[in-house]
């Protein structure tokens, strides 16, 4: 099933080095989560220091 999905994505959007098409989605979500965590940390630090 996964290989079929990957083949469909490759056919439509070009070669994809990921094993699963949703790896890109997961990568984005993890990056956003780390970013939001960093922003929350910065805000709390700024509030605490002031």
């Amino acid at each position, binding site marked *: 099933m996964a290989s079929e999905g990957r083949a469909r994505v490759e056919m*439509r*959007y*070009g*070669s*994809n*080095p*990921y094993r699963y*098409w*949703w790896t*890109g*989605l997961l*990568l*984005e*979500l993890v*990056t*956003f*989560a780390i*970013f*939001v965590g*960093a*922003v*929350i940390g*910065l*805000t*709390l*630090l*700024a*509030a*605490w220091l*002031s």
Partner: protein
Amino acid sequence: MWVGLHRRDLEVIAYYTGVLVVGIGLAMGIPLITALAAREWDPALDYLAGMGVACAIGVFMAGAAPRGGTLNRAQALIVTALAWVSAALVAAVPLALSGHYAGYLDALFDAMSGLTTSGLTLVQDLDHMAVSHNMWRHLMHLIGGQGIVVTALSIAIGMRGGGAISLYTAEGRDEKILPNVLHTARFIWFVSAVYVAVGTVALTIANLFGGLGVGRAILHGFWATIACYDTGGFGPQSLNALYYHSWVFEAVTVMLMLAGTVNFNLHADIWRGDRTELVRNIEARALAFNIAMMSIAVGIGLASVRVFGSAGELIRKGVYHVLSANSGTGHQTLYPAQWTQDFGGMAVAAIMLAMAFGGMVSSTAGGIKALRLGLVAKGVVLRIRQSLAPQSAVIADKFHHLVDQPLTADVLANSLMLFTLYMVTYITGGMVGAAYGYPIGDALFESISATANVGLSTGITTPGMPVGLKLMYILQMWAGRLEFIALLALIASAIAGLRSARRRRRR
């Protein structure tokens, strides 16, 4: 010399605008089906009437020219400007018939706000609105957020002619992700469909835990996902995001807002395996820096007024609104009056700057955009370096946006021009609001929110606001979404046409 439009130009413009209006009429089929499924017979009639009006006007306009005429750049700019206002004019019909608006102008305001993904609203008694009307309000976010032209291209209604690329770029999406413009439009929908599906499931679960029934949990989850991913800001309840009182709901919507503010080209690069683009791209860096700075400012500002004491409150009221403002979403977990009463000067100023700066280009976000801010900042540094270097030295710079590009005078001039146009519009709208008697701070906040298609409100936007201000905000939402050029091209063409008609009469 100004080039006026000829009869053939007008026929082609009428044809394509008509096709897009028919597309809006067909899209009303979704709320119509919703109304029938929910046994809402009066709203069903509203959508039948809306579809009738849209299809009649669209078919009449499309009949003006032979099918398949190709579009040049000037025609495409005017079609795009007209398509957005025509779409809003017909999309407002079922809303005006719903009984939830004081009149057609208020419904038009909401239609323009919905399609431009602004989120400001003049609706009355929202908490008792029919499901189908709420479906249409949120569907407008989806249609407008993806881009009316992208929507039409992706289902390719009458758009297989050579004008597709001209229309696509005229809508502010100036980069091709894939070699074929139709594939590009469909890829945008593919990414969006995945996010909407994931977001709806996550928010439905959050709503079920929050105590909503199954049907409402799914519908509210779907609508909130669209409103956040397309950076719109409408909600099915008058309290907006505050209605849910759920940190899980807020956490999921924050992720969706961030996804919505990311450039579709960046989505494409990441989804196709380029992991480094997200950290190398000047636009991603500029947006991350901007959000971080505004969050720090809000943190300091809120700490100084001491209204939100705990760390949890500081995050849920501070960081949430920075992300909502910067992404152009406009979901808020505050009562409008709290902006001036509880937030304090520094935090409100930071939120205003976050709204003004906006998200990334080629996304559903509004505002000046991070790419332009990054380029302007790089231009300032370049000018300082040039000033300090010997006269004979040649100092140049480059930037990375999908590919490495030289920082030319043309690129800088374009960024600065749009920066200036946005700033002038923000301030002009603020002055108009102040002229109607609103405090200048509130008026500027609302003006930025309308122009940058955000939707946060200090409470000025109500059904009782002056008609002139409603018209001003409609114009600002329209101009901001189109990034001015298409609208200015429409105005210039109209003036050139009037002048040439007057010259012909004199002869």
